[in-house]
């Protein structure tokens, strides 16, 4: 084969790849809004659509699409049709910065996105400079609201509550020695450190300091040996669900938790997902998770007083079950639109001002924000996995 035909082949394969990518974006970008009389309301949606967190990102984005479609059917907001512009942040800081710049250059008048806090944090200053509202459906690292930005609003209550709830649980159980491990993500590290502080304040000890395992690692054996030799009776994981399932499985096989162990395994809200339950299987039974009470009662987590209408509509539209944070995506869009209606304008500065005073009943309960943009009324729930399902643990620990 000569060089030229090889070049042609490379070119051809490039075209194939480009085609594949078009398919990917095409499949998720199907929210063609009807032509509006006035200009569309452009909303940037940075979300992980590829990479390890793509599943969660898609579930939130789909719910946002659904909200936008429903609003557009009723004539949009102040005559403007909503137009969501999705941009993949891949749960990666560098990609997220590019995505934020790209969205701003496309002239978006608001941003409604963010699942991974680590990818959301570096985008904050870019969005703040653009002077547009930044409503985050699921990113909830405590660091997100400490930057002093006036345009940031967290629909998912700050993760600082996760650590406090876990610490209260360990105290309730009389567990003094606790081993804490995170996944080196911005969210994981912040929650782990918050939990360590709360555990120490409750008179417990954090054996071996707060440990971090790379988010790409699937082998916890070295850490498990350390847990064994430390004699810790409580294990706290602040990373995401896929690793949580592997950690639980390996802890169970090592006889630390489950039928042959006496330790308690608790995970933060990043690990609340159906994939945790199926991945951990029987090893997941008797493990615990903390999550905002607003999140646990809706969507798929507990299944109690779930918004049946939302679930049914979502399933019909996307042929799949919504994720635990789908309703947060829906409420994020609703919050933005209601603020714009209050402001009688989609001018970013006026929408931001109205978001601060906004209060409405969304799918995730009452939505209102404190001065820094944190969701108010952030009560935590402790969930226990029983027979492969999340249940509300009894009794709930007292903070």
């Amino acid at each position: 084969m000569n060089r030229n035909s090889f070049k042609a082949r490379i070119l051809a394969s490039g075209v194939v790849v480009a085609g594949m990518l078009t398919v990917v974006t095409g499949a998720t970008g199907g929210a063609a809004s009807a032509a509006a009389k006035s200009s569309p309301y452009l909303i940037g949606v940075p979300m992980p659509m590829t990479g390890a967190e793509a599943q969660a990102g898609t579930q939130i984005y789909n719910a946002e699409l659904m909200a936008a479609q429903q609003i557009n059917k009723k004539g949009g907001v102040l005559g403007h049709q909503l137009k969501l512009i999705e941009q993949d942040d891949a749960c990666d800081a560098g990609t997220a910065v590019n995505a934020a710049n790209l969205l701003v250059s496309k002239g978006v008048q608001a941003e409604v996105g963010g699942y991974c806090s680590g990818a959301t944090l570096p985008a904050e200053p870019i969005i703040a400079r653009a002077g547009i509202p930044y409503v985050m459906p699921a990113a909830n690292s405590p660091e997100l609201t400490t930057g002093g930005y006036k345009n940031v609003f967290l629909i998912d209550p700050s993760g600082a509550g996760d650590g406090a709830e876990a610490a209260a649980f360990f105290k309730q159980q009389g567990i003094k020695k606790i081993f804490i491990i995170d996944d080196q993500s911005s969210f994981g590290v912040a929650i782990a450190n918050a939990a360590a502080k709360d555990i120490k304040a409750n008179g417990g000890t954090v054996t071996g300091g707060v440990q971090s395992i790379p988010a790409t690692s699937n082998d916890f054996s070295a850490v498990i040996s350390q847990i064994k030799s430390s004699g810790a009776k409580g294990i706290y994981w602040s990373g995401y669900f896929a690793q949580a399932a592997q950690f639980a499985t390996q802890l169970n096989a090592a006889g630390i938790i489950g039928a042959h162990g006496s330790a308690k395994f608790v995970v933060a809200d990043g690990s609340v997902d159906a994939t945790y339950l199926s991945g951990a299987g029987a090893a997941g039974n008797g493990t615990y998770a903390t999550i905002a009470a607003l999140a646990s009662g809706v969507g798929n987590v507990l299944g109690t007083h779930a918004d049946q209408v939302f679930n049914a509509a979502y399933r019909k539209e996307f042929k799949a079950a919504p994720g635990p944070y789908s309703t947060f995506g829906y409420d994020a869009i609703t919050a933005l639109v209601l603020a714009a209606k209050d402001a009688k304008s989609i001018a970013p500065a006026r929408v931001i001002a109205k978001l601060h005073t906004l209060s409405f009943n969304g799918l995730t309960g009452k939505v209102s924000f404190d001065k820094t943009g944190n969701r108010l009324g952030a009560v935590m729930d402790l969930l226990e996995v029983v027979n492969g399902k999340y249940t509300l643990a009894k009794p709930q620990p007292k903070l």
Partner: protein
Amino acid sequence: MSLLLNEIGNGIFLGAFFGLVALGYSMVYGILRLINFAHGDFYMVAAFVSYTILGAVAVGHSHGHWWTVVWVGLVVMVITGALAALANQLIYRPMRRAAILSLMIAAIGLSQVLENGVLVTPHWGATYLVYPVTTPPRGFNLGSNHYTWGQLFIVLISGLLALGVYFLVGRTLLGKAMRAVSEDRIAATLMGINVDLVIAIVFFIGGALAGAAAVMTGVYYGQINYLMGFTVGLEAFTAAVLGGIGNIGGAVLGGLILGIVQSIGTGIFGAEWSIVVAFGALVLMLWIRPTGLLGERVARRM
């Protein structure tokens, strides 16, 4: 002390995976001087293929029957080997006279095509998939560590496969042909060796080993996703360089050392240092012995 011994045990288990994947890197490098960056993605594709086959044949057995896993493993080894050989035939063989750097870039391109190919394949996609069969938690205690029978089985299989490759390359006529091609491709052609066939077989064996590692990863760790090949590829490549790239024994030894160093690093310094310790060991090794542990024969043999 017992923590140290436990971490060595953990490291040997981890190293068994690194070693198997490293063998594929090392053999291809030995024969073509090519660092095949797509190798980790052969492993990833194998994990998805075995996921689909096992899902179809092992329904209802959460722990499966071990012989089901074994025959599916063998089938997947053949499929992955064929995939690697096909990649060689379609991509690397036409480029054989090109600069080695072009081949490496083509390998990176192939890696992207495989990852995104799995991403857009129906039923595979971007999500974490839960492997249909997992090893049961039963096992034995050694020191204060608990090992499962599955872990022991995985280490034994890895050892047997590595021994098989060692024997094949060192003791058989085919192995002699591989070494001849590695040493001087033109002279080997003149001696009547079918160079293209030998290279294709090397790719096949490397792919098959990655396939075996993928099935074992699936049944032990229980989850797969389309980016899993990257991390493993990086670690296996490190193992291959540590042991002396191009050397069969070196790849296995490098894998074991990397696994043990990572585990001990975690035990002593904490999990956040495991990668720093592993790559620190690599830098130190390359500083003392730039050819890697067993790398002195790299110029002459595989």
